[in-house]
């Protein structure tokens, strides 16, 4: 189990050091909402870097797209060695455990980037 709020708020320091990924995404500017059960987090990407992670709830908030799953799903996804079906966001989406909605163009056009970004939250000891 991870502390999701703590892990997400540490995302800038953990992800932004991945220089090649950040540099490659230098034209990416977006905000997306990650919902875990009753908790929500708005993650802002500026020129490929994680610029801010804000904790909800948000009143009249803005974002391009939203990724929503229950907390148990995120916890399993972020476990060190997730079991089959919980190891990738597309697997979760296919199984209807995760919804990805809104203007998903930034997500789909930077799919490897977002997969790496979300994997960065994973607890240490993970395979990837």
């Amino acid at each position, binding site marked *: 189990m991870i502390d999701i709020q703590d892990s997400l708020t540490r995302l800038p320091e953990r992800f932004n050091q991945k220089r090649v990924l950040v540099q490659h995404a230098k034209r990416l500017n977006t905000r997306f909402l990650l919902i875990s059960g009753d908790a929500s987090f708005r993650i802002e990407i500026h020129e490929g870097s994680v610029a801010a992670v804000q904790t909800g709830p948000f009143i009249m908030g803005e974002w391009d797209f939203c990724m929503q799953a229950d907390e148990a799903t995120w916890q399993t996804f972020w476990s060190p*060695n*997730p079991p*089959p*079906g919980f*190891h*990738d*966001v*597309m*697997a979760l*989406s*296919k*199984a209807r455990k995760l919804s990805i909605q809104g203007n998903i*163009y930034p997500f*789909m*056009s930077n*799919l*490897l980037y977002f*997969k790496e970004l979300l994997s960065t939250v994973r607890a240490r000891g*993970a*395979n*990837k």
Partner: protein
Amino acid sequence: MSISNIAIEPIIGRYLQLTIHDKRHRIYVEEAGEGIPLLCLHTAGSDTRQYRGLMNAAEVTKRFRVICFDLPWHGKSSPPAGWHEESYKLGSKEYTDIILAMTSALSLDRPVVMGCSIGGRIVLHLALHHAKHFRGLIGLQSGAHVDPYYDLDWLHRPDVHGGEVCAGIVSGLVGPSSPQAHRWETLWHYMQSGPGVFKGDLHFYTADGDIRKDLTRINTEECPLWLLTGEYDYSCTPDDTALLGKSIPGSKWQIMKGMGHFPMSEDPERFLSYLLPVLDEISETN
């Protein structure tokens, strides 16, 4: 300059030209080994390099002549002249025809055919309609049908980099514990695929190649059928393969622990531990 560890692989590549249904094709073929012909089919949007581990495995090539070809539009095979005026879509008939044509053009005597993903699907079609042409069929990541689980248009649109989105779509299909070098080599093949080719292949995978209603008509007494599927594959799932195993009398199936959708490419060594017993069985009866 320091050079060391030079290794020249036993794989030989050539180009073959042939006309199918009035269309001239230039097909890239590579092979290694001697013995029972083993024709290998790559996945959607990829090419023969997926079988590099198998073709370099002496324990296979000492008994089997391993042959791989890039489907038209894929790898080093050209799309037919006029390709720029059509949208590529793979259909069951075209896919079957190219396999039968290559078998004939290369004078292969009742080869074993092993295919992965779309290749794993087409071996079911071969088992149903052309069993007598083959001495064995091996389906990797075989399922009777897959419903699309994302909008396939994302794979081919000018405002999204096709290579990167195709690799992004399939990256989770590689088993999480597969070696990093093989993982990224597998994804590199997807990044190099021609525009719209992966999407065109998925027409067969998600629509035209649906074989659910015909499964029980497959007769494994005419041609034996083996099915091997990686446990981390969420496209063609272990449940999909289990359903095949239960629906096709005489088929033999196994789930490969830790592996994903690209067993021969993502972890060739681990894959061999599952494949060699099947090849042993084929050797013993041939």
